[in-house]
């Protein structure tokens, strides 16, 4: 009885997501059983979702903090370009180049957070400008054409596997664990929730709102940098316009995953389920040879449905309480 009320809403949301997953899995078993349920198919799914999955966690942190990070794809590509350039032109060792990508991401994120927090400009505007600036910077560095043909060991990061399990799955799980730990078990994580649910009350509670804003966006930037490494390795190519659909996709994921668009609510678990669910659906479309245009439509409908469902559940709960 004791813990029920707090975890109830979370469970409700995750239950819906799981139900949808089960629905997709059963539907595909009926329609395309043998092809869908093959090791190869699951491997191909795993190769795909970590790059935008990691990105979505960045979006999640910023949205919980009461903002949004529209610059993530820009950060991802800038990080990827820097990483690729260092490996290819400067011959920097791969780990160091990857670290550089993460550092670039952290820098971009911190800059976003600084502007948002100190000048009180809405995150949506700042990060939208950020997207332009960081993408533009990546474009300026490459001068247009993609940077191709890094070493095989770099290519291996996102394309190699351990047995039949892709390396990227380990990266994704590692990121997931770290993000989940930070959000749940650290002071900073709780402060992000406080900041997102009421910025003024956070200030009046002694929370350093500027610092928390900067750190949240820095964390998002770091995650952008990591996904920059993954996507560059995956495509073995870095340019300013990779993964341009990921901005909206990551928004879709976090909202579908139960992150409150007004800030202050939602869980890492919900977002994780949402990432997997969307990958299952995307893969189903590929297997069914359905046109891509339809996928956009279905994703859009899913998002609207999730938003409506959330509001309806919220209203019902409010009525029960009053």
């Amino acid at each position, binding site marked *: 009885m004791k813990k029920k009320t707090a975890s109830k809403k979370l469970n409700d949301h995750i239950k819906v997501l799981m139900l949808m997953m089960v629905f997709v899995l059963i539907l595909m078993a009926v329609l395309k059983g043998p092809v869908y349920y093959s090791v190869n198919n699951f491997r191909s799914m795993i190769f795909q979702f970590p790059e935008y999955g990691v990105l979505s966690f960045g979006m999640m942190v910023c949205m919980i903090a009461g903002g949004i990070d529209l610059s993530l794809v820009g950060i991802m590509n800038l990080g990827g370009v820097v990483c690729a350039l260092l490996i290819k032109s400067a011959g920097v060792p791969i780990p160091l180049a990857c670290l550089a990508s993460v550092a670039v991401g952290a820098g971009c994120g911190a800059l976003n957070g600084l502007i948002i927090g100190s000048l009180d400009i809405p995150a949506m505007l700042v990060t939208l400008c950020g997207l332009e600036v960081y993408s533009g910077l990546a474009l300026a560095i490459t001068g247009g054409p993609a940077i191709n043909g890094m070493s095989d060991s770099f290519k291996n990061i996102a394309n190699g596997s351990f047995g039949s399990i892709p390396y990227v799955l380990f990266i994704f799980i590692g990121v997931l664990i770290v993000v989940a730990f930070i959000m749940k078990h650290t002071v900073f994580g709780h402060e992000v929730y406080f900041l997102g649910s009421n910025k003024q009350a956070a200030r*009046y509670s002694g929370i350093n709102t500027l610092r928390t804003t900067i750190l949240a966006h820095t964390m998002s930037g770091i995650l952008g940098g990591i996904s920059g490494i993954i996507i560059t390795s995956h495509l073995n190519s870095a340019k300013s316009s990779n993964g341009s659909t990921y901005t909206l996709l990551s928004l879709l994921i976090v909202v579908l995953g139960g992150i409150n668009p007004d800030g202050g609510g939602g869980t890492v678990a919900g977002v994780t389920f949402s990432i997997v669910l969307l990958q299952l659906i995307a893969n189903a479309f590929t297997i069914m040879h359905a046109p891509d245009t339809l996928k956009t439509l279905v994703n859009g409908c899913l998002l609207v449905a999730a938003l409506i469902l959330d509001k309806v559940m919220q209203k019902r709960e409010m009525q029960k*309480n*009053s």
Partner: protein
Amino acid sequence: MSLKPHTVQKPYGVSSVKKERPGQNMGNEENKVFLKLKGIKKSFGGVHALRGVDLEIREGEIHCLAGENGCGKSTLIKAISGVHEPDEGEIWINGEKVEHMKPIDAINRGIQVIYQDFAVFPNLTVAENIALNGEVKDRKKFVNWKEIHQIAERGMAQVGAELDPDMPLEQLPVAGKQMVAICRAIVNDAKLLILDEPTTALTEKEVGKLWEVLRGLKKKGIAIMIVNHKLDEIYQIADSLTILRNGKYISSGKISEYNDARFMKDMTGRDLVETKYDPELSDEEVFRVDHLTLKGRFEDVSFSMNKGDILGLTGLLGSGRGEIGEALFGITPPESGDIYMNGKKIEIHSVADAIKNKIGYVPEDRLTQGLFMERSIEDNTIASSIRDYFHGMSLNEKEMREASERWLKDLSIAAPSIDPPVRTLSGGNAQKVVIAKWLNTHPRLFILNGPTVGVDVGAKAEIHEILRGLAKQGIGIIIISDDLPELLQNCNKIVIMNKGKVRLVTDNKIDKLSL
């Protein structure tokens, strides 16, 4: 018994009118009764907000509805304006019994409510705000700007307000916005004007101007009802008075039938003197400020408090009382002056400094500054002390739960557990959560700005009891409030501010006149 189904055959929402005269025994006054309520009851879920309220308002009369916060005043206003339909009871308007009244029915009968936020449009001009409502109500498709100006000018002339019709409303002070709201009500043919706590955000001068305007309207035969619980203001303006307590009708009558004692007794249900705070005096100084100054807010403020003291800080709005609280908590740090805690000099330049020096602050606006409405009671309780639970690598969740559960019990917060969001709590319980948040930081100085605003009578007494207990433990307590009875009852020292300066420091032997 509360949610009685309606057995009336008429379609819901259509108001029906019966031509009947209300009680004949009321004909002994020269003015006609405009609004008459009989035995109004209303409950929400299991909470009885109104348990049988009678009210009578006459044309050309200023009637004051008084009662402590949570007594059902706002629910009653909503019943009169058609927002809430009463579960039981009768509403008579102008001698007609009205059933199933909707807001539009109330407006058509001339009932206009001016809420505390005035419901005005800040980005529109004065003239637009006054006149546009009528244009919309008349379902006009096009806006006639000349007419808008004429309507606005006429409204302002009737009310006696002097405002620039082309000025955007956001540039007006609060009092100006209020005038616009009154003009709008008059333009819309108000016969009964209801003002919900109209003076809370006004300066003394503005209050005077408001009374002037209301007296003018009264002479035109308009019935006026003011919700207020400030005794001195009621004496200034009201002709008659109705007092509610805990949703119940307590008493009603001409203002001349009341004195301070009866008023307080009817409002609170107990005698004021009974519970006066009287601590043992001590020489041990807990907190002192010397020549504290923040230009434009307050100047040269000095006071000190000893162990066991509860210090009241009061003055009119704009006197600097709230600003001192914000300054001592580091929100807007003081520019100069010295602050001593337990005899040691401390510096406060930020909220972090204040917290480091064990100062807790319950802000004036609980909803926007004090609480995380969507977060659980537990989260709210540990919000300011969360760092204490970070051991080694992670937060100790068990300790956080235990601390929060302890406060739930110690402060008797009425909630099933620490898990529901604070949004589900009543005002008094929510305020206790804010208090718990600070007590969990083990403060040495605890500043409370308007600690019992919007708190019901029972919880108010409980909060006072908590504060007295803390003071006895040697925690310095500063209560900032404009609720003078509250201060007289709970503080053994009172600092009265005026225009940013300390006007009087007293050991609580003042009467209300010296304010």
